[in-house]
């Protein structure tokens, strides 16, 4: 392709990078840190509270490590994946979504999406870090993971692909953020594209972890990887609206025209994606009701069983219908209303992940056999320790967000 822009040579990149590290950039950051130190009192109060949350929950998490997960957590042999896995999924879904939605601007060049890029990329690194932190306290031997993932890889395992690709993703996104800070937009674009590709591959593998378990009827099938990508975009849109609105509050500033426009397009995209998710959910349920007995049981647990409140109140009303109506009503101009919608979406999606992970396991393995051990749905309620790890993960994201807003001065881009 002759018209394609030539990729910059390594030496040029190095030269450019060296140039960018001149005194002005450092001085800029320095002044930002000073600015951070002279932040408003409410900012410090907020930072102190979130910091305290992280501290307390990390104590609880370390206590869980000490006492052993079998005692500290309520996961069982039959339901080994609980709220920690669903929270991990929630965070990485959000991260991938932030990456995908922001890439519309800084990778594919749609001007309207440009202003949200920096904050989104920063938050995608933060949320995936939060996710991995939660996963760290779920996996029994996380340190072995680093070693044996490399020296004993199983290429048929979706977990292996997910871990490896998310590793690459995290690296590319971090690199992209640095390039964005240095205003190296071309390089940021390449890093962003690499991040996007590895992120989508990783995320569909995360869906496939569930979708390829043929012993679990509720999950099995191609639905999961596809649904994960679509719902990731919805999560990403919600996170962008939520954190951008909050960011401007934290910095006590008003949005300029281009940012308002960005919020409008992201809001419209959210509305579209909500409609798509409603469509997905509807057909998941309708097909599930005429499936094999195990799947029908799982769907019934969701619709009329112990998870009915989660489904109808949190997933449907708070997660889909509520924000959909609010977004339409806001006409994508009323930022307060859009913020409320995004908050509702985030809460709803969190519960959605929980239901998705837990309900896949509540129908006993020998359900069809009609034995005494598998006549009823299996119970699971998160323990105190599990909830604290989840709170800690949310706390980490909150602290990092607050610090990011001050240190990187509202993630403003100089080029509009």
């Amino acid at each position, binding site marked *: 392709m002759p018209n394609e822009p030539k990729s910059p040579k390594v030496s040029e990149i190095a030269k450019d990078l060296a140039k960018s590290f001149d005194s002005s950039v450092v001085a800029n950051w320095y002044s930002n840190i000073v600015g951070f130190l002279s932040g408003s009192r409410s900012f410090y109060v907020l930072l102190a509270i979130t910091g305290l949350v992280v501290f307390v929950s990390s104590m609880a998490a370390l206590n869980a490590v000490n006492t*052993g997960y*079998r005692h500290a957590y309520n996961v069982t*042999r*039959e339901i*080994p*994946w609980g709220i920690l896995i669903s929270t991990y999924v929630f965070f990485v879904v959000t991260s991938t979504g932030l990456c995908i939605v922001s890439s519309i601007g800084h990778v594919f060049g749609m001007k309207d999406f440009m202003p949200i890029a920096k904050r989104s990329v920063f938050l995608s690194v933060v949320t995936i870090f939060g996710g991995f932190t939660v996963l760290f306290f779920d*996996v*029994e*031997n*996380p340190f*072995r*993971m680093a070693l*044996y*993932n490399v020296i*004993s*890889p*199983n290429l*048929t*395992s*979706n*977990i*292996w692909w997910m*871990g490896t690709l998310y590793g690459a993703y995290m690296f590319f996104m971090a690199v992209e953020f640095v390039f964005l800070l240095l205003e190296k937009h071309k390089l940021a674009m390449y890093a962003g594209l690499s991040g996007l590709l590895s992120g989508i591959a990783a995320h569909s593998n995360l869906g496939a*972890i569930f979708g*390829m*378990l*043929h*012993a*679990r009827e509720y999950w099995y099938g191609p639905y999961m990887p596809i649904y994960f990508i679509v719902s990731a975009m919805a999560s990403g849109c919600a996170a962008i609206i939520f954190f951008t609105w909050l960011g401007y509050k934290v910095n006590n500033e008003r949005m300029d025209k281009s940012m308002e426009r960005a919020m409008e397009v992201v809001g419209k995209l959210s509305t579209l994606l909500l409609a798509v998710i409603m469509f997905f959910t509807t057909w998941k349920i309708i097909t599930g009701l005429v499936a*094999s007995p195990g799947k029908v049981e799982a769907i019934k647990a969701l619709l009329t069983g112990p998870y009915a409140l989660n489904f109808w109140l949190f997933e449907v009303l708070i997660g889909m219908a509520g924000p959909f109506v609010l977004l339409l009503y806001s006409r994508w101009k009323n930022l307060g209303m859009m913020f409320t919608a995004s908050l509702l979406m985030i809460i709803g999606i969190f519960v959605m992940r929980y239901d998705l992970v837990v309900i*896949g*396991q509540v129908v*006993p*393995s*020998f359900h*069809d*056999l*009609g*034995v*005494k*051990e*598998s006549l009823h749905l299996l119970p699971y309620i998160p323990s105190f320790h599990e909830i604290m790890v989840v709170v800690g993960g949310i706390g980490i994201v909150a602290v990092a967000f607050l610090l990011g807003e001050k240190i990187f001065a509202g993630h403003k881009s100089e080029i509009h």
Partner: protein
Amino acid sequence: MNLKKTDFETLKKDKMEKVSPIERREFLKIGLAISGIFAGGTILSVVSNMNKVFASPEEFAGKYPYKPHYGMVIRQDRCIDCERCMEACVMTNDVPEYGYRTMILEKEVLDAIGQKKEFIPVLCNHCNNPPCVRACPTKATYKDKKTGIVMMNYEKCIGCKTCVVACPYNARYFNEEKHAIDKCNFCFDTRISKGEKLTACAAACPAGVRIFGDLSDTNSEAYKLIHQLARPVWVLRPEVGAKPNVFYMKG
């Protein structure tokens, strides 16, 4: 479907005794074909299930991929739930009180005539197509190339518990002492590799429920029990397609 066309007009139909055996057979064939279509194979399920089960060894008949190809036949109706197999397993394999490698499920049918309860022993099925092995990210669980036993390399286990979720037979649990997932390995390390012929559970069973053996050996009892047509043989959850090596039968 290739059905022979029967001309009904030419059939004698006034007197039943005059119906020739051939006509009778033709008629039954049509009925069978129709009911087969509508029942979607349900009516034929006894036959087709047996074929399915039989298919597992049949595919490898004479060319079992493993030598010895270990498997177990469970003569379900003989089980009296004495749990000596479970005790023997715990003693032999150092299984903690919070876990188990083998278990006896209980089925109660209150409106059954006569006997109202039956017991179904379960353990790892050492599948030919094991979902756990596919899912493990670090090859900590693997299918032994020689014996076909699904084994654990405890050192490599990261404790992600994907194999536990992947297993259709609830055969896996996290062992705190081993810091890894633990499961039945047909007593390979504790007995079989030391020259014993039976697993601890099979040796302990007083009712001859668990017949452990080499399926690739045509003289083994396990082989003979599976490769016959007189009594139905089945596996648990055949729809998963894991191709288990633990077979069930009655009588």
